[in-house]
């Protein structure tokens, strides 16, 4: 059984905290033991049950953008501690640790890239950075991504992965929902398409703002999607939640999602949708 134990120095990079770091790993959903290299080849999707492992923001850039290239903007925006938030761990320490752990400066990467030759303003969130939570920096970067769409008249594509607003910035985090939605009102009036891609999980403050405001909204299979956290709902109603509650499939069933798209089909689906959403003169 030595086999299944994770070696201390695995073959994959030790920084990939979100991703299993041994030779073999167990599927969270069906329990299948999978060879990590196979899993990687399969875009981190379980070959047996189709469970989509959570991947990093950089992986989505690789997956969705032509040549895996993003002209990144606003990476110099850094969270401060406007509330001097009192917690078991101080907020600046939390930020520092997350930056070190993920190599990111905050929970979203934004910039300009191409999807099958169509230029888009692109944003992708990273759950590894304080649960993908939205504070002032995430809100500002998403706002600027929307503004770049407006200025250049190019579509907006945002891949969401977030537990919601960042508690440590209090009311300022809540206001990022308003900020981003206000700019999306402008984008809507300018008739510029916005495709929202939901991944596991997208909930609360992010789900209740820009993630829900796409002209077309698609999601990876079996992602946790919703407003309130399952635990909160369970406590409120005092009974077990039905199976499949708040999943991508649940969202589709209730009319809040256009389509569930497997990771391997994500790029071509987004590309095709862009083609349909863009005005005729601009498709080429």
């Amino acid at each position, binding site marked *: 059984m030595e086999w299944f134990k994770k070696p201390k120095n695995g073959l994959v990079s030790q920084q990939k905290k979100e991703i299993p770091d041994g030779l073999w790993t167990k599927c969270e959903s069906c329990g299948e033991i999978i060879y990590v290299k196979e899993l990687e080849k399969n875009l981190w999707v379980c070959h047996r049950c189709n469970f989509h492992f959570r991947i990093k923001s950089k992986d989505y850039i690789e997956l969705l953008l032509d040549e895996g290239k993003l002209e990144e903007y606003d990476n110099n925006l850094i969270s401060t501690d406007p509330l001097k938030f009192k917690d078991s761990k101080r907020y600046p320490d939390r930020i520092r640790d997350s930056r070190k752990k993920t190599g990111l400066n905050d929970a979203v990467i934004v910039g300009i890239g191409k999807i099958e030759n169509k230029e888009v303003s692109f944003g992708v969130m990273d759950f590894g950075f304080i649960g993908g939570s939205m504070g002032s920096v995430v809100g500002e970067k998403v706002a600027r991504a929307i503004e770049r769409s407006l200025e250049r008249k190019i579509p907006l594509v945002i891949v969401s992965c977030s537990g919601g607003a960042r*508690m440590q910035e209090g009311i300022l985090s809540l206001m990022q929902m*308003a900020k981003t939605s206000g700019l999306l009102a402008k984008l809507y009036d300018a008739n510029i398409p916005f495709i929202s891609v939901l991944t596991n999980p997208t909930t609360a403050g992010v789900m209740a703002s820009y993630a829900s405001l796409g002209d077309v909204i698609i999601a990876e299979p079996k992602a946790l999607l919703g407003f309130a956290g399952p635990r909160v709902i369970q406590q409120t109603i005092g009974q077990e939640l039905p199976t499949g509650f708040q999943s991508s499939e649940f969202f589709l069933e209730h009319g809040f999602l256009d389509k569930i798209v497997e990771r391997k089909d994500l790029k071509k689906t987004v590309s095709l949708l862009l083609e349909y959403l863009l005005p005729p003169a601009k498709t080429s």
Partner: protein
Amino acid sequence: MNGQYLDFEKPILDLEKRIQDMKDFASGESLELSREIQLLEKRKDRLLQDIYSKLTRWQRVQLARHPLRPHSLDYINLISTDFVELHGDRGFADDKAVVGGFGKIEGRAVMFIGQQKGRDTKQKLYRNFGMMHPEGYRKALRLMQLASRSGKPIIILVDTPGAFPGIGAEERGQAEAIARNLREMFRLKVPITINIVGEGASGGALGIGIGDRVLMLENSWYSVISPEGCSAILWRDSSKAPLAAEALKLSSFDLKELKVIDRIVLEPVGGAHRNPKEAADILKREIIKDLGELSELEIEELLQKRIEKFRRMGVFSTEEYHLPERGEPPENIG
């Protein structure tokens, strides 16, 4: 006060009781006690000033939830005439946790939207404790769009412990309903004034909270999460809510400092519940002031400024931020 008081109000209540006893005794025995009563009244005023000038954030949260605090319909009835309540989202139901309708302030027609709590148990259940479902946000949006089309300014009264977290709410798209309101409220072509009168919990409050002016009553709170919710997440224990209230900086004074609200509306000494009429009069003056200023603007300018107002919110650094030293020594030294 019918035995409905908060811990820190107790000394005031005791004094009020003594004053009343003395008055009763004096009238029964035809004794001249007016000087004594006057002295006690003065003492009470000083005590009120004293207690209410140094409230903690948690005490203000408690005041915002005071059982006798005026609710949205109380304010609507006190500041307007000819209120016509309108119902339903035209799709699913009439959410009783939110009320809306046309009314007149000093003869000027406006649309009121307010989250509504109940006072007794039956009413609380009927109003679902002021926690809206998706159909509530859709009802509010329908009425706001009606106001926009008929050129009537919108006056919003926020008072909610949060959007309802339940199975039905998720099935009917709580997140979508709130998100849509956030976007659509930026597109309403009439002035909107937001007035936080009690509790402003998270997305549930913000879902009707986009406007040209945002005011908070002195003893209301507005936050990304309730103190109980924050406490449960941080300390796995909702009883640390007073600590969470401090950490979240959720008082009207905090939000003014964080540039999230435009003005604080001072309440009568001792809180709005001690004098609802006076509280409503003060709020009415503030609303009239806002409506006056906002109606001067062209619609284009109004909408542009509304987006810019929220566009500015947030605090971050563009420099390499020099983090303060660690709070505690790192684990596993050596």
